[in-house]
């Protein structure tokens, strides 16, 4: 792994350790055993005769198991190993370790093996913001287990550690006094079990660890088998595709208290949680490959759809949640994530996903099942999101303390700015929200007509969409720049910075045909396009910074939707150019695209510079190669058929995507790279 940390996970449980398998968490870092947004183990250090281990190699068997090969001593120059260790770890409800010590000498050896253990029971938010705890810690040795606990009023979480071999257990860990025969070995199993994870959840899993591992291995094989097979002249593309499928499998998340099936979580390590926007966009990206993710996302988000007004949680009737958390701060309502609803795009995107899912799968039963939810989402757009009564979706948090200021995907504090760098007041009506609302209305109209048999609703939605498009193209168009403004401020003035949001507008279809060419020219122009991809904010704008989170970096997921938008308006060459840049960048990250990378000019750095604290793997970055494949192959459902209209970069050569699932059964798509992206790139200057 690029950061030297080893991460393994299952559902919402994950372990992050160093390359020796040790955990020594400081209050602000993310090593540890985490579940439901809580750190259940913050110290886990192995020593032999008082010596720390030295890592020889790490074998990432699967995303849920790892093997560390170790020798005692921390020498870095020369290691004369008379002993070696294999530390095999697998995640389940907590984790399990198999520790094997090999003696390479003729003589038996006496060893003191020790595992130090402690837990700070930190909420992930505390780790992120370095907050202090309010409860009480305790440790106990009982029934041959070390039990670490934390209590605050009725809130209680604990971790129980036990071993299969005879151990000396004290309040700081487990010790083993052993003799390993000459050329012999010794081993023990160690269990770190999470207890009282959530109310109602069984304290201890009844499934054996071996069974759990077999189940997870089978599950991953099934997942890979069910996905379309990719053949290509490009070895890099094949590797990226496989990496994406495996990472997407890892990021599948069965939310506690929210349904049995799995949906994409947002990303490791901060965002192993249910996010409205991230889960929806990732499900959209993955539709041609794993359509079942969309079904689960729609149902789980539907279950949690807002029903009333709650200012602390920014909840409205019909609103789709932004983020759900399970940690201590959420439990004590010091954070609003139970769940928090402060997102202005998840609700229209919910309708977009429902329609796109039906177009691919033909599953009308789910459209009927979720009719109330979809209608409530459509009503939210007009009744609760039009904060100014001007016919545009805008946002302003009601929770002034811990709510989100920016409720669009660019959610950092300075992401929405004028050309000169000034920040607008609230409410803010960002442009892509209008695009999503437009698309949701048209797609809602289609569903109303074919599934709900409500012609009146369909006609009304179409009227409203047409009116929105007309007004939008008048009010957001920056005449002297020939692009769409990032937002309207509370006075209706254009927030006139040039941004990647223009690409999302193409995707939504809200852009007048007559304006599309100018928009495409900007997206591929020198101010936005870095050579790797489209920057979030154009070079030359007041707040532009090539390593600013939403003000200059290149976001792979953003680019996948931009490419889709370019295709929608017929800009095949431009779409292939964006796709080629992002897929080439992926090669520098072993096929695993980060959340964001620097917006530096491609010729300047020669390789994409990873944004410092980016999450990895992150769901919508993982979904990016999938959506780019769809875009390059020009896959589009049309009635009961799948249209294939490839426009591939010449760098890819031959490409086959076999067994694409959908309402047509399974279909193969073929393409050959004919778009000379190098020529397109050089024309840019």
């Amino acid at each position, binding site marked *: 792994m690029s950061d030297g940390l080893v991460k393994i996970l299952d559902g919402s449980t994950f372990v992050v350790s160093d390359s020796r398998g040790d955990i020594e968490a400081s209050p602000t870092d993310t090593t540890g055993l985490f579940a439901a947004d809580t750190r259940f183990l913050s110290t886990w250090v192995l020593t032999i005769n008082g010596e720390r281990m030295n890592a020889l190699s790490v074998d990432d068997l699967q995303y849920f198991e790892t093997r560390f090969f170790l020798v005692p001593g921390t020498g870095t120059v020369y290691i004369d190993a008379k002993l070696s260790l294999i530390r095999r770890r697998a995640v389940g409800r907590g984790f399990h370790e198999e520790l094997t010590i090999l003696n390479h000498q003729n003589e038996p050896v006496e060893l003191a093996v020790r595992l130090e253990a402690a837990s700070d029971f930190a909420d992930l938010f505390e780790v992120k913001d370095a907050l202090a705890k309010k409860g009480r810690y305790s440790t106990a040795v009982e029934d041959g287990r070390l039990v670490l606990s934390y209590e*605050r*009023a*009725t*809130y*209680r979480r604990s971790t129980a550690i036990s071993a299969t071999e005879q151990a000396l257990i004290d309040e700081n860990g487990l010790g083993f006094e052993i003799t390993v025969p000459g050329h012999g070995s010794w081993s023990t199993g160690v269990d770190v079990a999470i207890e009282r994870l*959530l*109310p*109602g*959840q069984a304290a201890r899993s009844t499934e054996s660890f071996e069974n759990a591992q077999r189940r997870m291995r089978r599950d991953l094989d099934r997942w890979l088998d069910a996905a379309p097979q990719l053949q290509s002249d490009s070895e890099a593309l094949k590797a990226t595709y496989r990496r994406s499928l495996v990472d997407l499998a890892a990021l599948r998340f069965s939310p*506690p*208290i*929210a*349904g*049995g099936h799995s949906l994409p979580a947002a990303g490791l390590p901060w965002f192993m949680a249910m996010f409205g926007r991230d889960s929806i966009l990732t499900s959209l990206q993955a539709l041609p490959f794993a359509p079942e993710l969309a079904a689960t996302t729609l149902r789980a988000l*539907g*279950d*949690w*759809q807002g*029903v*009333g*007004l*709650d*200012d*602390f*949680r920014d*909840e409205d009737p019909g609103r789709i949640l932004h983020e759900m958390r*399970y940690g*201590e701060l*959420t*439990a*004590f*309502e010091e954070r609003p994530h*139970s*769940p928090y609803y402060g997102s202005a795009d998840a609700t229209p995107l919910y309708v977009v996903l429902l329609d796109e899912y039906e177009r691919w799968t033909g599953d009308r039963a789910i459209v009927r*099942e*979720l009719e*109330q939810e979809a209608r*409530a989402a459509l009503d939210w757009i007009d009744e609760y999101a039009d904060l100014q009564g001007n016919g545009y979706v805008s946002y302003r948090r009601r929770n002034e303390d811990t709510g989100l200021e920016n409720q669009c995907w660019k959610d950092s504090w300075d992401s929405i700015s004028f050309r000169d760098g000034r920040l607008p007041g609230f409410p803010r009506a960002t442009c892509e929200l209008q695009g999503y609302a437009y698309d949701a209305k048209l797609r809602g109209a289609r569903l109303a007509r074919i599934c709900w048999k409500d012609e009146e609703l369909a006609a009304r939605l179409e009227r409203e969409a047409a009116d929105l498009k007309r007004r939008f193209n008048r009010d957001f168009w920056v005449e002297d720049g020939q692009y769409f403004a990032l937002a309207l401020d509370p006075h209706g003035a254009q927030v006139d910075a040039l941004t990647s949001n223009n690409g999302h507008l193409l995707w939504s279809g809200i852009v007048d045909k007559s304006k599309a060419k100018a928009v495409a020219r900007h997206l591929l122009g020198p101010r936005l396009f870095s050579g790797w991809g489209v920057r979030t904010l154009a070079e030359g704008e007041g707040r532009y910074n090539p390593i600013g989170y939403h003000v200059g970096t290149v976001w792979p997921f953003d680019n996948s939707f931009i490419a889709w938008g370019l295709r929608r308006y017929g800009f095949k060459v431009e779409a292939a150019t964006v796709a080629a840049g992002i897929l080439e960048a992926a090669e520098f990250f072993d096929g695993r695209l980060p959340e964001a990378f620097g917006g530096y000019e491609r010729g300047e750095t020669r390789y994409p510079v990873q944004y410092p604290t980016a999450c990895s793997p992150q769901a919508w970055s993982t979904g990016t190669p999938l959506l780019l494949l769809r875009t390059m192959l020009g896959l589009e459902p049309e009635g009961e058929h799948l249209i294939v209209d490839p426009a591939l970069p010449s760098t890819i050569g031959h490409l086959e995507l076999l067994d694409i699932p959908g309402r047509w059964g399974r279909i193969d798509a073929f393409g050959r790279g004919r778009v000379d992206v190098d020529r397109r790139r050089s024309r840019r200057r």
Partner: protein
Amino acid sequence: MSSGPFSAFIDELARRGYDPMLANAVGTARLEVTDGGPRERWLVSIDKGAITVSRKNTKARTTVRADRKTFDKAATGRLNMMAAALRGEIVIAGDPRFLVQLQRLFPRPSDAP
């Protein structure tokens, strides 16, 4: 029989009959008041939006236990059930997923008196 916000809420729930927001929900929950003499139990059944309330002492998919003060808060939109469950102020037994459906029946802060 007790009076107070929770009792009034139970009465209102029994009169509500149908809630379109629960059109996909099927399940039963037992609400148990843990203090104040003999245990007060309510069985709330949801069948595709149709709500019935009874005192039947049968097995439920999910059981929610809390003291009367807590149920009174929930009945007046002053308790978020998810947060309360996470901090152990209400105790969930059985299938915790049904809590998602159940919490939709309760009022929100804007409905608080």
